[in-house]
């Protein structure tokens, strides 16, 4: 049996990206031995798929890519690796696809402790196993100290969409209900707190989780889901504005129905930020036919990833592309996409 090469360095250095023996040590010891599957173990330049085996899941491929840059790399409830796996799974899942294979591209800054990198790779493996996907191909680059921010990860994913599913932002229709699968803003607030700038004594965890199983439950309850997106950067506000623009409709939310944890509300109050603009890593927003909304809601609530699901609004007649939120007093305000980045107010 072939002996696996071992990585002995404590920190990443430029030789780990040189294409030589040190790089081979890194790839075999960290990535291949951890991700461990026949496709990757073959150490070819590409993963190869048998088309018939893909066809058993459906008739169309879904293909997506995303890059992950986050500071800090580790935060309560996850790390950059779990984000990279679940984020790409979710980008596939919201099309109704069954996620199957991922690639993993890593850009590592010289000087990164190998122990941290190993922990991240192990987290990726655990997240992939939990979701039933395989990381089958990858790439490693090392950049000089000061030219990166410890670690950037790119993951690309392939999934298969079962027959008859047609989910698209442009399909939202007047009368549809708007559903979210739980508390919003957890990830954005957790990252803000984890940076340690705020000195807030609060417990906040990312909501990072895969959503494909929840999507299966949702499709079983309502095969005609109209629009679904995961509400990552830009938050729920951005997704709803995209729906409204794409389908030429208006969306009206009821603020009192939107699930937001008290701690997240507290962070927003202190800093003058809006949870609807915070990033999420395990939340989706959907527009669904009104007549199946209640049944769908109950189905979602039966799954752990949708336990706090709620109907938060509806698609209405009105200026195309406009999202309006009804406040607790019956007043209304426009909910726009995030402009620039969210910046705390001075007082």
């Amino acid at each position, binding site marked *: 049996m072939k002996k696996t090469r071992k990585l002995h360095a404590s920190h990443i250095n430029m030789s780990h990206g040189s294409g030589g023996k040190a790089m081979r040590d890194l790839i075999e010891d960290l990535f291949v031995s951890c991700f461990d599957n026949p496709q990757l173990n073959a150490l070819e330049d590409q993963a190869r798929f048998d088309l018939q085996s893909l066809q058993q899941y459906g008739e169309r491929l879904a293909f997506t890519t995303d890059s992950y840059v986050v500071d800090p790399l580790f935060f309560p409830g996850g790390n950059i690796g779990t984000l990279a796996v679940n984020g790409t799974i979710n980008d596939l899942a919201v099309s109704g696809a069954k996620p199957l294979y991922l690639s993993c591209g890593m850009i590592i800054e010289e000087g990164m402790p190998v122990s941290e990198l190993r922990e991240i790779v192990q987290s990726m493996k655990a997240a992939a196993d939990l979701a039933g996907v395989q990381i089958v191909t990858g790439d490693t680059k090392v950049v000089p100290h000061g030219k990166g921010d410890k670690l950037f990860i790119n993951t690309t994913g392939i999934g298969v969409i079962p027959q008859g599913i047609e989910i698209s932002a442009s399909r939202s229709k007047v009368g549809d209900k708007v559903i979210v699968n739980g508390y919003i803003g957890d990830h954005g607030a957790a990252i803000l707190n984890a940076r340690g700038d705020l000195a807030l004594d609060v417990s906040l965890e990312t909501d990072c989780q895969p959503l494909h199983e929840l999507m299966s439950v949702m499709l079983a309850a309502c095969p005609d889901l109209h629009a679904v997106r995961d509400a990552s950067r830009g938050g729920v506000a951005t997704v709803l504005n995209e729906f409204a623009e794409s389908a030429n409709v208006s969306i009206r939310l009821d603020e009192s129905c939107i699930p937001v944890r008290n701690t997240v509300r507290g962070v927003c109050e202190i800093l003058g930020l809006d949870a609807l603009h915070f990033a999420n890593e395990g939340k989706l927003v959907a527009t669904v036919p009104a007549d199946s909304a209640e049944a769908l809601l109950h189905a979602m609530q039966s799954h752990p990833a949708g336990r706090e699901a709620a109907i938060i609004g509806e698609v209405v007649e009105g200026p195309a592309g406009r999202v309006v939120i009804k406040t607790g*007093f019956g007043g209304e*305000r426009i909910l*726009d996409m995030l402009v620039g980045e969210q910046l705390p*107010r*001075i007082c």
Partner: protein
Amino acid sequence: MKFVDEFRDPDMAKSLLDKINQIVKEIPRCQQRPLQIMEVCGGHTHSIFRYGLEQLLPKEIELVHGPGCPVCVLPMGRVDDCIAIAEQPNVIFTTFGDAMRVPGSKKSLLQAKAGGADIRMVYSPMDALQLAKKNPDKQVVFFGLGFETTMPSTALTLLQAKKEGVSNFYLFCNHITIIPTIKAILDSPDMTIDGFLGPGHVSMIIGQKPYEFISRHYQRPLVIAGFEPLDILQSLYMLLIQIRDERAEIENQYTRLVPESGNRQALQAVSEVFELREFFEWRGLGSIDHSGVQIRQSFAQYDAERHFIVPNLTIADPKACQCGEVLKGAIKPWQCKVFGKECTPETPLGALMVSTEGSCSAYYAYGKIDVDNL
């Protein structure tokens, strides 16, 4: 959420709105023209829009969004000065988040940061002082801005820097003071304001007394107001009672946080570190006498204006900008020639479009203005 939800109770809001609707009928003056009530503070503007309060009020009340956003009234020349300091070698320039996007004559701090200047967002001046202690080989500058609300924390930071003998920390002082500004508005020839919602946070520091000239010399009522929606509605109701009864007094709705005589310790720190400037330039309002503070001689070693070469130029606002008229309540934000066209939150031409507390930005983001059809 405790101590928050209590001030957002829809039933209480409805009851207050009913009372407001009733009382305006008892004020003959508002049958001829709407009563103009100015909320001085940008925090109030933000709450008014966030909770859609303006639409719930009767047509007899017109809210005028005043000059109380320190970011909005920051003149362009001052932003240029910040960038000139930040771009000097070996400098770490620190600032509150919402000052990052304010346009200077050529660029904003955010753009200067993208161009390579070491500009960092902090949440308090103490964070900037910590940064100075951690980076003894750098010169760390804190961009101090804001009204009396933020002035004490800056003063306490300088006192701390002096006590600890930190020698690489500097303050670029742009703190401003609210009273001369309200006076300038009251002295404006086109002044039509009937009453004021007083700034809650500023009043926590200065107390009630400094506002007394408003009732005594100008016969206008002022109610110091908290920032929650119920605070604002109750304060409006208190103002309307005064107007109905033809009284002009200084009242305090925000008693849970505002002591009558202010915060003595904070005021002491402020007076130890700062002294009034002869005049200070305001964006949209021009120069207002004694409306800003500067660092006293005894703290000169921390004064960025003395330590660094700053251009200190007065840059005129863009001609198309009507921020000044909006600030004085002469026109509404959407009546400005460039609102929603050349001037949007993404490309702010005027300062009022920059911060979420600026009335133009608030109207753009929260107001039911059909921007496409302006």
